[in-house]
């Protein structure tokens, strides 16, 4: 995206069972805590589930997701100082896989439609905005980030607030259980003993702007991003990593960067056998074998449409604090192609990071973020 307009990123926030707000969440992760735990009989038919779930007492309405997504947005907006910017062109993007899916149990398909939830969140914002819902399985968050950044670079909007959120539901738990995709203990991304993923719920948000003066804290820069499809299978990850390889290649091209300049990779790393192997192949093909890499699924579980924004927000904190987080749950790199999976926190300055995600439907996404 060699446009004239720079896209700045800031105001990152996470509301998760690991912490309320980015500072608490990052600090807890840094201290080796996880939001995952054993849930006894969370849903009928699932005797136990290792997952990240908020306490029900945290919420007062029948729509916890609306509450925690709105809370995340408020936190992001608190990191801005508005002057004339409130009257400029704003884009609001909600990324999710299933939205407020728990309402479907009683047959309420109106409130289960993510578009309804987006409108509820949009109403609370202090500015007029175009509202969009992006739903691309587990790459939804990065797809929203890329979408918003491209809109700013093309001078179609001036600023964007993006928020990703999904809930832990019986709906998705039963589905992943039928895929034998769940680990009954803490997930072990990239470990040779990995058995599957843990599910979680969270919201994450951040602000993109062409105007760096809007941010109270010095922003980072979005360089470029791309999505791709494996064109192979609707649920099974590609055996060659072709789609992810191409998404990374395109993101590098749009950013005018080369793989050797990447100092850290925030991977998708779900902890399933085939996903992690696929990612390892794609990273290896780009020569990223020695680049420090983590998966954050061991802190949050897989929060689906929120996950990649949770991980972008946490990675942005890592860049600000010069501290890369270890891969919770992983003892040692154990994919066929070995990677430099961080098993301990690493204090180091990083200026260029790659964030990737992959999901059902064969979709992949990659973005490059720079500490300017």
């Amino acid at each position: 995206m060699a446009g004239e307009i720079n896209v700045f990123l800031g105001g990152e926030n996470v509301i998760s069972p690991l912490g309320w707000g980015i500072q608490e969440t990052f600090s807890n992760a840094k201290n080796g805590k996880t939001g995952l735990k054993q849930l006894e009989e969370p849903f009928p038919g699932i005797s136990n589930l290792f997952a990240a779930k908020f306490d029900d007492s945290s919420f007062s309405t029948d729509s916890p997701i609306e509450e925690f997504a709105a809370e995340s947005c408020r936190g992001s907006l608190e990191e801005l100082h508005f002057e004339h910017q409130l009257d400029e062109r704003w884009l609001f993007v909600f990324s999710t896989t299933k939205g407020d899916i728990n309402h479907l149990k009683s047959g309420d398909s109106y409130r289960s439609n993510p578009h309804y939830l987006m409108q509820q969140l949009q109403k609370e914002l202090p500015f007029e905005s175009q509202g969009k819902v992006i739903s691309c399985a587990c790459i939804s968050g990065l797809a929203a980030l890329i979408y918003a950044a491209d809109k700013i670079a093309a001078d179609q909007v001036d600023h964007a607030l993006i928020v990703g959120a999904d809930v832990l539901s019986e709906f998705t738990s039963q589905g992943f259980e039928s895929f034998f995709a769940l680990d009954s203990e803490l997930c072990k991304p990239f470990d040779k003993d990995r058995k599957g993923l843990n599910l979680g719920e969270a919201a994450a948000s951040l602000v993109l702007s062409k105007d760096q003066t809007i941010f109270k804290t010095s922003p980072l820069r979005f360089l470029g991003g791309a999505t791709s499809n494996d064109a192979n299978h609707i649920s099974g990850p590609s055996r060659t990593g072709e789609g992810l390889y191409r998404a990374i290649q395109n993101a590098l091209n749009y950013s005018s960067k080369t793989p050797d300049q990447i100092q850290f990779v925030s991977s998708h790393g779900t902890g399933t056998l085939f996903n992690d192997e696929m990612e390892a192949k794609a990273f290896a093909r780009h020569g990223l074998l020695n680049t420090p890499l983590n998966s954050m699924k061991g802190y949050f579980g897989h929060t689906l449409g929120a996950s990649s924004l949770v991980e972008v927000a946490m990675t942005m904190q890592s860049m600000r604090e010069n501290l890369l987080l270890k891969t919770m749950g992983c003892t040692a790199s154990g994919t066929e192609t070995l990677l430099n999976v961080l098993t301990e926190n690493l204090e180091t300055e990083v200026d260029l990071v790659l964030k990737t995600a992959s999901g059902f439907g064969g979709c992949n996404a990659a973005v490059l973020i720079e500490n300017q």
Partner: protein
Amino acid sequence: MSLQEEIKKHLIDQLNLEDLTPEDIADDQPLFGDAGIGLDSIDALEIIVMLDNNFGVVLQNPEQGREVFKSVNTLADYIVKSRS
């Protein structure tokens, strides 16, 4: 109806093998792979559900599927063994 025929009917029904009839599937024909009738990983998971719902047989470990799901004959053997 033989057990084999019963299995074929359920496979066609559950896996939406619209263009196949039970006669099209030989008892020892591979179900997966290019030489077979072209089933994939989602079909394998669906066979696990079918075994449970229609035959009361629970496959605890999906890894077992590799051997058990080779053909209609191996499925029939597994069902008979599990029931006895």
